[in-house]
């Protein structure tokens, strides 16, 4: 499985062959544009050193040295270390998206060995739950969904393979440069390899508009190309290249032509469904499909000229015949290059496909190339592999910084650059520029593997701080958003974490890995809001409904209200950082919603089964399950008072509504 190495070294150097034919003139970039921090090569920052013994003790991990230096500059001090139950709960949710079991909490709390924490980190990094949690972050970023969106919102019945590929890649700790390359160009690198074909399905994950009647081929193609290009900018490069689609970027040195030169890498990319069914399965499918098509055609012909009731009757027949189409055979949801159908790429005035300017060839963002670096003509073989080589070049100043920042974001709730998809001028400045470069270097030097980066961060004292600090008043005054990490930022669980944790706590979680996505029952009224309600075909096996949220179908036109209300992304655009809003419909969902009430019944049953009839033992277990700690005296008192007169399932419901359950400290 070797990349078809072109003669290019794939470096940022001016090594591109001169294009033949007429092209738009190459833009130039001013030195101050090139000198913007994010476009400059990464530095090799020195780890700050401290003389004070307490500081030295706190900064054995380089991460801490960078953090403490900034805190000192502002006259701030880090918070003390969080207690063990808090730490293990935090780490479980951060790495696996699930709460620890009571036994796991007890074992860690009672583990006196000095390496108790590193061992815990290691164990969770090795858990298959890690990929499910961190894969989810990636799926947000690449606007993963399993339906087309728009009016038909047809299901992509094999898109789950991409989701499994992502989870597997995280679990295997696949080097990030390879991960990027496979998704951009898996089909070019190894067209015969199923995994690679699935990976390059990335290009097709966006919404797709299909319509009946007169087709606007050029307009539809233009929409597809825009979609492919924008996600590369957002997910891999962390720059808003999409802003340059209509005109030069208003804030960043990304020219109008840069956008289309980037788009040119996708000029030959077309959808490709790679059948994986056996020859006989395919033959039988083709026969069935041909019969159904023939019937549809016959009815269509018969319908012509009919009116009124007769027409209505025929229309009914037509719908019935259309339903007879056999469900699609399994196929890899992929792309391939078809150079004979490559779309000529022009600079489009105002982004309008009808308003074509000069033609362009392929070239990465000019501000990151030496002046005058020529384009390569469309039709050059293996275009996306070439783009991937540029993106994953260790010298590319953006790629490693952007990814290291994402890892930091998901551990601390805020990136070093707070706008993870926008490192441009409209985005945030890094709060710790040296630390960002240090982490990015660590990522690249560690062979682009993420787990060493997680390890570095998770073993730091900065990560293990409590979410409260004795110095909170002074710190809030100077840094209310905790940009400088003077404590751990408490966070609300994400939508999937809440659902998965409720399943885990009530003993219902089905931990099966991978496979086709699950459709859970929802309010019928909601299904009726679909243009084709029959699409919501609930998965028959009830135990499947209790699987982790990452395995529930991601349908663009029907998102689960539970997910929606807790800020799950809308599946249409790349989402780098989720919102975390707090409002009354969340309370209604948790109090009255079908899911939490089912979970409350299950949790009550579990409490009764495992803690017997003793209310004190039930309360104790409930807290240890849901909050990973025993209740405090006041909590216990209130709960016992309640249970003296009220049913256990109402107490269980209350537990699933507690801040202690819904937040990570």
């Amino acid at each position: 499985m070797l990349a078809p190495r072109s003669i290019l070294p794939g470096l940022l150097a001016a090594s591109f062959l001169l294009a033949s034919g007429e092209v738009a003139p190459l833009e130039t970039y001013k030195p101050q544009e090139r000198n913007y921090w994010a476009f400059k090569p990464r530095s090799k920052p020195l780890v700050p050193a401290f003389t004070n013994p307490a500081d030295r003790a706190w900064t054995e991990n380089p991460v801490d040295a960078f953090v403490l230096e900034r805190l000192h500059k502002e006259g701030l001090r880090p918070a003390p270390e969080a207690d063990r139950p808090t730490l293990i709960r935090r780490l479980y949710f951060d790495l696996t998206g699930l709460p620890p079991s009571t036994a796991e909490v007890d074992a860690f709390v009672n583990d006196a060995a000095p390496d108790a924490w590193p061992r815990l980190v290691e164990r969770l990094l090795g858990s298959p739950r890690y990929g499910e949690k961190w894969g989810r972050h990636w799926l947000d970023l690449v606007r993963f969904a399993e339906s087309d969106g728009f009016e038909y919102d047809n299901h992509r019945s094999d898109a789950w393979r991409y989701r499994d590929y992502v989870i597997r890649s995280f679990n295997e700790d696949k080097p990030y440069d390879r991960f990027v390359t496979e998704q951009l160009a898996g089909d070019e690198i190894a067209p015969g390899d199923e995994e690679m074909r699935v990976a390059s399905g990335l290009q097709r994950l966006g919404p797709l508009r299909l319509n009946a009647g007169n087709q606007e081929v050029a307009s539809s193609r233009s929409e597809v190309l825009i979609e492919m290009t924008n996600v590369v900018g957002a997910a891999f490069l962390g720059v808003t290249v999409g802003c340059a689609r209509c005109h030069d970027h208003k804030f960043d040195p990304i020219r109008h032509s840069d956008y289309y030169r980037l788009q040119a890498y996708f000029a030959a990319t077309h959808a490709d469904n790679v059948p994986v069914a056996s020859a006989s399965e395919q033959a039988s499918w083709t026969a069935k499909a041909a019969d159904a098509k023939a019937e549809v055609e016959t009815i269509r012909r018969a319908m012509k000229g009919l009116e009124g009731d007769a027409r209505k009757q025929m229309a009914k027949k037509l719908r019935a015949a259309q339903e007879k189409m056999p469900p699609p055979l399994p196929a890899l949801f992929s792309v391939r290059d078809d150079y004979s159908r490559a779309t000529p790429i022009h600079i489009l005035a105002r982004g309008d496909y009808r308003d074509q300017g000069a033609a362009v060839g392929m070239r990465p963002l000019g501000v990151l190339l030496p002046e005058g670096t020529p384009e390569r003509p469309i039709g050059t073989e293996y275009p996306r592999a070439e783009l991937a080589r540029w993106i994953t070049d260790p010298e590319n100043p953006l790629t490693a910084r952007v990814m290291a920042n994402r890892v930091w974001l998901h551990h601390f709730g805020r990136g070093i650059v707070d706008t993870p998809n926008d490192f441009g001028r409209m985005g945030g400045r890094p709060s710790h520029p040296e630390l960002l470069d240090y982490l990015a270097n660590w990522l690249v030097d560690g062979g682009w593997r993420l787990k060493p980066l997680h390890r570095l961060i998770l073993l730091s004292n900065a990560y293990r701080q409590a979410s409260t600090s004795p110095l909170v008043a002074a710190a809030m005054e100077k840094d209310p958003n905790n940009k400088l990490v003077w404590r751990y930022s408490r966070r609300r669980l994400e939508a999937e974490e809440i659902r998965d944790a409720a399943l885990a706590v009530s003993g219902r979680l089905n931990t099966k890995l991978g496979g086709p996505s699950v459709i859970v029952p929802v309010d019928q009224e909601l299904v009726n809001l679909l243009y084709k309600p029959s699409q919501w075909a609930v998965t028959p096996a009830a135990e499947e409904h209790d699987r982790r949220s990452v395995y529930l179908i991601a349908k663009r036109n029907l998102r689960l209200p539970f997910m929606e209300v807790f800020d799950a992304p809308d599946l249409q655009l790349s989402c780098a950082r989720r919102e975390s809003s707090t409002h009354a419909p969340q309370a209604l969902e948790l109090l009255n919603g079908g899911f939490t009430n089912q979970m409350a019944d299950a949790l009550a049953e579990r409490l009764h089964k495992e803690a017997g009839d003793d209310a004190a033992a039930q309360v104790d277990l409930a807290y240890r399950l849901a909050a990973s700690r025993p209740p405090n005296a006041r909590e216990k008192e209130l709960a016992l008072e309640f249970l003296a007169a009220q049913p256990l399932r109402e107490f269980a419901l209350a537990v699933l509504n507690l801040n202690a359950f819904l937040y990570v400290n």
Partner: protein
Amino acid sequence: MPEHVRITRNRREFITDAFCGFGSVALASMLQAQMPAATVNPLAPKAPHMPAKAKAKSVIFLFMAGGPSHVETFDPKPLLNKLHGQKRPASFGEAKYQFVKKDATLLGTKRTFRKYGESGLEVSDLFPHMSECVDDLAVIRSCHGDMVVHSAAQYQLMTGRILPGFPSMGSWAIYGLGTESESLPAYVVMPDPDGALEAGQPMYSNGFLPAVYQPTMFRAGERPVLNLDLPKGVSPAEREKTVRLIRGLNEANLEPDDTEFEARIQAYDLAFKMQTEAPAVLDISSEPEETRELYGVGAEPTDDYGRRCLLARRLVENGVRFVCVVSGGGPGNLQWDAHDDIEENHLRMAVQTDKPVAGLLKDLKRRGLLDSTLVLWGGEFGRSPECEGGKGRDHHNLGFSMWMAGGGIKGGQAIGATDEIGLRAVESPYHFRDIHTTLLHQLGLNQDALSYMHQGRRERLTEIQGEVISALV
């Protein structure tokens, strides 16, 4: 927690946000406006950017889904009848349709138009009830959009973009203004029980705005709000105890510096308030018979749309900011999507909605609510002057009609014009973005100031700068 949804802000943060978040015009007015008290309810009412210009407090969008024909409703075209059966003269220019081919011929209308009211505004015989309200209507005969297929056109109508993923007008409105009601959802969509629309739920959604700005989709029947009812077998008294327990347990573990936990406690208080107070507002049976009759409630075929319009009035009366009442859903012919037979379709759709819409306007007016409620009527496009399959009309986005009423809009006029066959908006054309800008303007919101940082862009409802339609305000 992102600053946009932080619950409490100190003064310095507030000012910083104001500087970063809004244009200078808006900033000036914000500094004049009173500093809002620290609040934990993200939907608490907010001062508009332009308090002096804010005429409307609420919006009711009567969404005629599928695309009602302008030449059958508000835009009489005598020449179209004269040219019936002929091909479109070349002088009118080209148009691209979704289905109709180049060889199609023009289709005259069977509708008759008459002048009504003091203004003498022309309305077709499809709307005998609405014609009694013409002096409040401002018909915009020169609307146009960019897309000729339903889904993309619906996205543009609702969100200003032809792609899904962007916040709808309703979400923008409550992001800008919050809501006056604590016991009702801020932004309500009442879909047609006949079924879904092509663009689906994403067209109403909050897009990338926080979930607090999402729409509440009302369900058919007596209990429209999901999760407002207690689960079966749980009594309100019992549940109240549970809610009190949740509060007690949360407080038993409250960190002194935690503003967000405070917000959660308030969210539960609001939820409880909604649960106890909303059902009374949602119950239209308390309305007097005369009012129900005015909307056509209790009689077919107006009962369904009449109920929803009456409910819309009750919602805005109680402080709901944005209500969308959809006419049309499910397969095309149950919408205004008259491909097969314009007569059959429009006569049916019009009679379902005419009396309810007129009832709503009259009722709002006599209650003094029309001044503060902007009513917008229209679909994602109009219909082709050419015929489709003999008697139908295809989609048509180059020129069509919408109307506004109330909320400070000058009624009794028709502005803009299409050409003589209704093909193209030729006089003062107004794009959806101009409709959006005008709507925001009446709410006292400025299209630039009402923005949200997303993926490095300051996004707003209008993609390209819109224009306030000066003839209307």
